[in-house]
């Protein structure tokens, strides 16, 4: 279920403006705040996600860690990642991070997607996949700085967290938020979430986490899923959360300048040929050439 087209702010592989008549949503759009410092890794969010979205991943195996399933998949749109880190003081920290789509303001997936309307960004900030338009090329994976989308081996469509766009559209919070028992997941306007995060960060600083902070990376224009981290100066501690995520330069070139330049160059080449023809005209052979050829042939026949 999608929001109405009036709420679509951006659309993949679309060069014209999307319906823009509605004024932008308030409070900087919606945002999910994941407080890693309150999270106990109970995986209720994973269950809620599976239940609401009717997803059932494989019953897998244990590979020597708590993380299960082992990775995001077309059927696991969110996943707790567990990292054991020793602080310089020698104390152990078990940093647990709920992984999933970050809903970037500048989404790499949307930029990379070649299929019109397969990826949309709503006015509230949610980046959503419309699988009926997905062609399964995987460019969204190439474009994503967070390694989030996954393509189903069964239907070859790309899937990821929708931020429960269907629930949010009717005024409900995402399923994971509703299920979180400790309040580690909260949802509201982005402005409110930043205020909430500021309070949390103050509390964390009072507990000795001097580098506590909010993860809302500017490299992707900010995100609509944000983290409160104890160590905001070292996001990579949290199972390789990117330090400074941004759309890769290769993708920017590929999906940026290359596109108009290529069309122009191809058009120019064709036009060059056309006008060459108009100006110089065809290169033809006539009877004189044939006669010359016959002469040469005769000479050559005599030569030996």
């Amino acid at each position: 279920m999608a929001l109405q087209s009036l709420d679509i702010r951006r659309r993949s592989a679309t060069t014209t403006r999307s319906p823009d008549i509605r004024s932008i949503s308030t409070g900087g759009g919606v945002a999910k705040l994941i407080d890693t410092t309150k999270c106990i890794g109970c995986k209720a969010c994973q269950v809620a996600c599976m239940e609401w979205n009717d997803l059932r991943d494989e019953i897998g195996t244990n590979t020597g860690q708590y993380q299960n399933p082992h990775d995001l998949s077309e059927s696991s749109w969110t996943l707790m990642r567990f990292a054991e880190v020793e602080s310089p003081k020698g104390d152990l920290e078990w940093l647990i991070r709920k992984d999933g789509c970050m809903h970037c303001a500048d989404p790499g997936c949307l930029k990379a997607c070649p299929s019109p309307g397969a990826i949309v960004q709503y006015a509230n900030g949610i980046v959503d996949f419309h699988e009926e338009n997905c062609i399964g090329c995987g460019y969204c994976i190439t474009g994503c700085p967070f390694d989030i989308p996954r393509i189903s081996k069964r239907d070859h469509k790309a899937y990821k967290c929708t931020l429960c766009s269907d629930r949010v559209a009717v005024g409900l919070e995402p399923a994971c938020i509703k299920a979180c028992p400790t309040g580690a997941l909260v949802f509201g306007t982005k402005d409110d979430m930043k205020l909430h995060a500021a309070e949390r960060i103050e509390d964390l600083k009072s507990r000795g986490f001097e580098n506590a902070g909010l993860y809302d990376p500017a490299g992707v224009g900010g995100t609509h899923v944000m983290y409160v981290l104890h160590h905001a100066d070292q996001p990579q501690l949290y199972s390789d959360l990117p330090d400074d995520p941004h759309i890769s330069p290769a993708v920017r070139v590929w999906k940026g300048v290359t596109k108009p330049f290529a069309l122009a160059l191809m058009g120019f080449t064709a036009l060059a040929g056309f006008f060459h023809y108009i100006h110089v005209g065809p290169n033809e052979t006539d009877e004189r050439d044939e006669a010359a050829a016959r002469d040469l042939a005769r000479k050559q026949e005599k030569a030996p």
Partner: protein
Amino acid sequence: MTNHWVDIKNADIVLIMGGNAAEAHPCGFKWVTEAKAHNKARLIVVDPRFTRSASVADVYAPIRTGTDIVFLGAVISYLLANDKIQRDYVTNYTDFTFLVREDFAFQEGLYSGYNADKHSYDKSTWEYETGPDGFVKTDPSLAHPRCVYQLMKQHYTRYTPEMVERVCGTPKEKFLQICEMMASTATPTRAMTIMYALGWTQHSVGTQMIRTAAMVQLLLGNIGVSGGGMNALRGHSNIQGLTDLGLMSNLLTGYMTLPGEKEQSYADYIATRAFKPMRPNQLSYWQNYEKFFVSFMKAWWGDAATADNHWGYDFLPKLDKPYDMLQSFELMNQGNMNGFICQGFNPLAAAPNKGKMNASLAKLKFLIIMDPLATETSEFWRNFGDHNDVDPKQIQTEVFRLPTSCFAEENGALTNSSRWLQWHWKGADPPGEARSDLEIMGGIFTRLRALYQAEGGAYPDPIVKLSWPYAQPHSPSAEELAREYSGKALKDLADPKDATKVTRKAGEQLAGFAELRSDGSTASGCWIFCGAWGPTGNLMARRDNSDPSGIGQTINWAFAWPANRRVMYNRASCNPDGKPYNPDRKLIAWNGSAWGGADIPDFKADEDPAHGMGPFIMNPEGVARFFGRKNLAEGPFPEHYEPFETPLAANPLSPKEPLALNNPAARVFPDDRKAFGKPAQFPHAATTYRLTEHFHYWTKHVRLNAILQPEQFVEIGDALGKELGIASGDHVKVSSNRGYIQAVAVVTKRLRALQVDGKTLHHVGIPIHWGFKGLAKPGYLANTLTPFVGDGNSQTPEFKSFLVKVEKV
């Protein structure tokens, strides 16, 4: 819980020890995060493993499994030595000043009266000294060498930070840091809550561990106050209700007890339970025991319970010994118990020493399984390869499987850890041929009764005279049972102060246990539940979460036993004058003529505080006990004993007394003692536990949970992994002297090697959730490994401390 889930948010310090609330109680754990977020609370976690709770703790300290009494005893010692106690509270509300008998003694880990042959005590010396007036002697100056304060101080001098480091493996600095944090709640305006669960109960000294923690809380004045308390986190959603309703083999409902075989006289039975006050002007509420008991007997046997037959006292069995789980399976193994109705229980998985369980079940003539799931127990006779390697041809037990509905498929009340009876409504019909437990039990009972009526027998009276007033005898309803355990008037009840007034008409539901009478005019199946279904209806079904108190006292939400009281002993939240110790978190107060406030007073409602009645009204002393008298098997003060499978050769606290190595008062069956392993062969300390992704052995039948934790694993520390060449993901074999399991290894920093008594000790963590039935990957039952020995009082098996060895497969 003495307090309740929501009240945890009022704590200033939260200690999670002997439990892992974030893992096993994630929904309740939200109140810890509330306390941290909104009350600036600090969270302390003490556990052998760095757990999910530890991951959000402010301070974590490791501890060797089974040594909590050393840790907590040293906390007591620290608090006393540094005078970090709430003195006003302790001197007025505890037995600090009470004098103990002169012949009471303690030496090298043993109390006076020990009988080494019987592994038990003659407890006669474990008592206070009484004066000529019949009351206990006291010394308000606390100078008397035999006052409880002095004895306790003396007892715990051996429990030093150095001893903690040596026995528990806890670094001394961490221990002292934690002591300091705990001590900060000795002021009247700060409170600490202690949250524990099976991490304390499942030890051979589990009850004493809990008691030690309670003593810490008493010293700090944290019992009876908002944000404090001793809070047992119950596992199964209705396990609280199980004990409340007396499903333990030695209990009747409401914590009344079955008589022993020597108690053939009804008068003696009542006299030994209706405690007389031990100090002047104390309430000693158990004086009302007979009212509760007679009302209970009227609920069970109705008109057949009369004053003439002592309310049917002879119908009750008289115990020659406790018939707890371990005893029952021992009898089964000896061939002395050959039929077993197994209702909502999966003992093959849930009881210790699976090998013994297999052998015991195989000796049964019949086994009836009542369960919503196809449990391991129901297929104990089937060969599942290495996971259950039995020969079905050798097993003659006839197994009947009666599928039951689950909680969501029936109406009823569940009692949570907060002692709240919360009514729930059926959400769906049970599948297939499943029937409710009530219907199955009703059917079995009515047929048995018919057989007894037709054929008689040795003593059919308790069966044929049982009151069975249900509209459909073969299928009593939850509502009928709820009204029955709550209670009603059998005759018009006259006001004791004015005989012309009728306070309750015959047949009317009672509002509370204060209305119960010992003359047979009231019936109540469980006195502490009395009023749950009162004259105004089903209070358990209330869902009003308004909180005028602002501290989470939602007293119109469901019904909390007793008497809808949310915080037990709440009289102790006020000073002797009746003023709240902490005005910001006021539970009740004396207004000059009555007690009242945000909670139901746990006190005589109109008792002027000037008269000196103590706040612990269930105790005949009127105060809380540090000196446990004869109540527990091991002694009046908790003493550390090693687990029955210990890596140590001697108890460091009483090294010269071999009898004090393990709990000297525990009951160990001879064959089980032989099955204990020795550290030479099994060098690692193992502990079993639950994961948040699963619920016991149930959710491996559920696809969602199986996805989240699909396959059996064991956890070992980095250091042990290195020593044995085991990497995460390798398969390992873990053996005890009773069997072995194989599982995937999770090699983790979270289980660190400890220095114990000069040696390096490794822990092995064994989650329990796998078996050979269900959707998750088949695995071994973890209780293949565990020893068949229980706590000296509750007989809860020692699942948390035993010895294993680990090998790479």
